[in-house]
């Protein structure tokens, strides 16, 4: 007879170790899949840099009424939106592709824990985000005189990025339920995301938007993510320009946390290895 029933894991500590070990295996798979695709590398790293360099160079001036360069505002915005692009857009479309070609079904029939799979996906998004941030920092400092964060700002940067990735990934996983196929993803994912970028203070100053649009944008995490990032890269005086009169870091944390909870709850409840009943 074949596989002995023997070594099946029942002890909780052993189960945890196994989940962690398999998370690493899944992380390696997810990461390899992303970096081995030249297209992905372009869109995830080079494209944001390109945008940054072009916009930063074309608009070398300061923001009205401040002595903060537009390029620095952009740095925060582009870091935020490329983070979101990786965690939300890239992840969800990747998952839909994997569902379409039977990869998820195969996973679902194997003893890989769901948690390990998602940890691998999130871990991969995290590593890529860090790479994006580093790339942006290098260009920002070299080309636009961006200042490195100091002291507690590093801490802020870290928690804002971490919460941002978690929120993006949670939503990315949850939204796969309503994306029927990779080809039909754009109207559900890409276009809304692009629209969201314009109203969340990525390319255009958030404060110049009409109030109702600001309210709309504030429902979503991207506006807050970018604001949190601005608190790291822009001088404190800029707070006055922000609609709330301050960085409102408490709100950044709260909104991101709410989206994390919503995203993960939806993800856990609605995620399917294959599309249908």
């Amino acid at each position: 007879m074949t596989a002995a029933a023997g070594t099946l894991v029942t002890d909780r500590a052993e189960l945890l170790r196994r989940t962690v070990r398999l998370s690493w295996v899944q992380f390696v798979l997810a990461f390899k899949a992303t970096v081995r695709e030249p297209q992905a590398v372009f869109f995830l790293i080079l494209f944001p840099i390109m945008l940054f360099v072009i916009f930063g160079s074309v608009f070398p001036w300061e923001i009205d009424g401040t002595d903060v360069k537009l390029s620095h505002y952009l740095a925060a915005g582009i870091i935020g939106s490329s983070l979101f692009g990786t965690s939300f857009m890239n992840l969800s479309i990747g998952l839909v592709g994997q569902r379409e070609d039977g990869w998820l079904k195969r996973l679902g029939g194997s003893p890989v824990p769901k948690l390990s799979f998602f940890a691998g996906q999130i871990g991969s998004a995290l590593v890529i985000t860090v790479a994006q941030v580093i790339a942006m920092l290098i260009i920002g400092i070299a080309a636009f005189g961006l200042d490195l964060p100091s002291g507690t700002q590093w801490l802020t940067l870290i928690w804002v990025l971490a919460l941002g990735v978690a929120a993006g990934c949670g939503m990315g996983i949850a939204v796969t339920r309503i994306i029927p196929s990779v080809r039909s993803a754009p109207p559900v994912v890409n276009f809304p995301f692009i629209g969201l970028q314009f109203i969340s203070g990525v390319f255009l100053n958030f404060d110049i938007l009409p109030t109702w649009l600001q309210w709309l944008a504030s429902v979503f995490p991207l506006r807050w993510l970018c604001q949190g990032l601005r608190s790291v890269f822009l001088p404190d005086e800029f707070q006055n320009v922000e609609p709330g009169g301050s960085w409102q870091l408490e709100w950044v944390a709260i909104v991101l946390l709410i989206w994390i909870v919503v995203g993960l709850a939806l993800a856990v409840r609605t995620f399917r290895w294959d599309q249908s009943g």
Partner: protein
Amino acid sequence: MQSPSLTTMPPAISVSGVTKRYGPVTAVDGVDLEIAEGEVYALLGPNGAGKTTLVEMLEGFRKADSGEISVLGMDPADGSLAFRSRIGIVLQSQGSIDTYTARELVSAWSAAYPNPMDPESALKLVGLSEHADRRGKKFSGGMRRRLDFALGVVGNPDLLFLDEPTTGFDAVARRQSWEVVRSLSAEGRTILLTTHYLDEAEALADRIGVISEGKLIIEGTIWDLRRELGTSTRISWRPDPELDLAGLPQEASAWRRTESGRLTLETNEPTRLLRDLLAWSALRGLDELPELWVRSPSLEEIYLELVGAESEAQDPPLVEAAG
């Protein structure tokens, strides 16, 4: 091939009164089925007959609306770790494997199982050892299927689900796959095979079950199927269109007529009918009954008739089997 164990061992798969509906459509309609441990069972049926839905319920991806399912003593819908550790699924994958090498993928997969095969053994079993470091995107269709196979078996499953495993294979590759399936079965694994190919079912399966319109309409060994369905002999010929068929044995209307003008009749007394037919032809002065053949139906004909398709073999096949 092993004969199924009928005795005290609990069945590997037990399906009882299982029904599954999608809105107005009943995909699976009160199916009862038992597959013994160590058995190779082939599930046949046209597309849309319900076999995919049934198998997905057995794999744990769908929940039945009613009835009971027990696979390896567990409810697949629970999706327990114990369950998923003991089954293997071979399915056709497309793009996602492209970025990895066969070795990478099979190794990563084996890591999840409590008692896996050595990845190199799995690669060797499916004949991919030589190409194991090539990326999936450079694989031919046949190599991809081999990789699918390796991924399905590397976990050392007690129960293997094979979903149309040789679709798209050339004759050589098919034979090789069959050998692999046989060797897996010889190790005592239970295998549930869905296939469109009757020769495959015949070559591999201990028992065959035919699903049509959600129901299991017949089940048994090849011999059982033949015995139940194929006892009769068919006699067929193609008369000249001008020929007057008056007095034809068993009445001209009893013969089944195809568009091409061929007449076929099924009978349990072929010798008597032949004798009468030949006597009639002599009476009519016919030296030859054009395109005459006498044979028992092939498994394919039995199957096609069973699932309601118009039998293609009113005319003899291009490559005539002996007898």
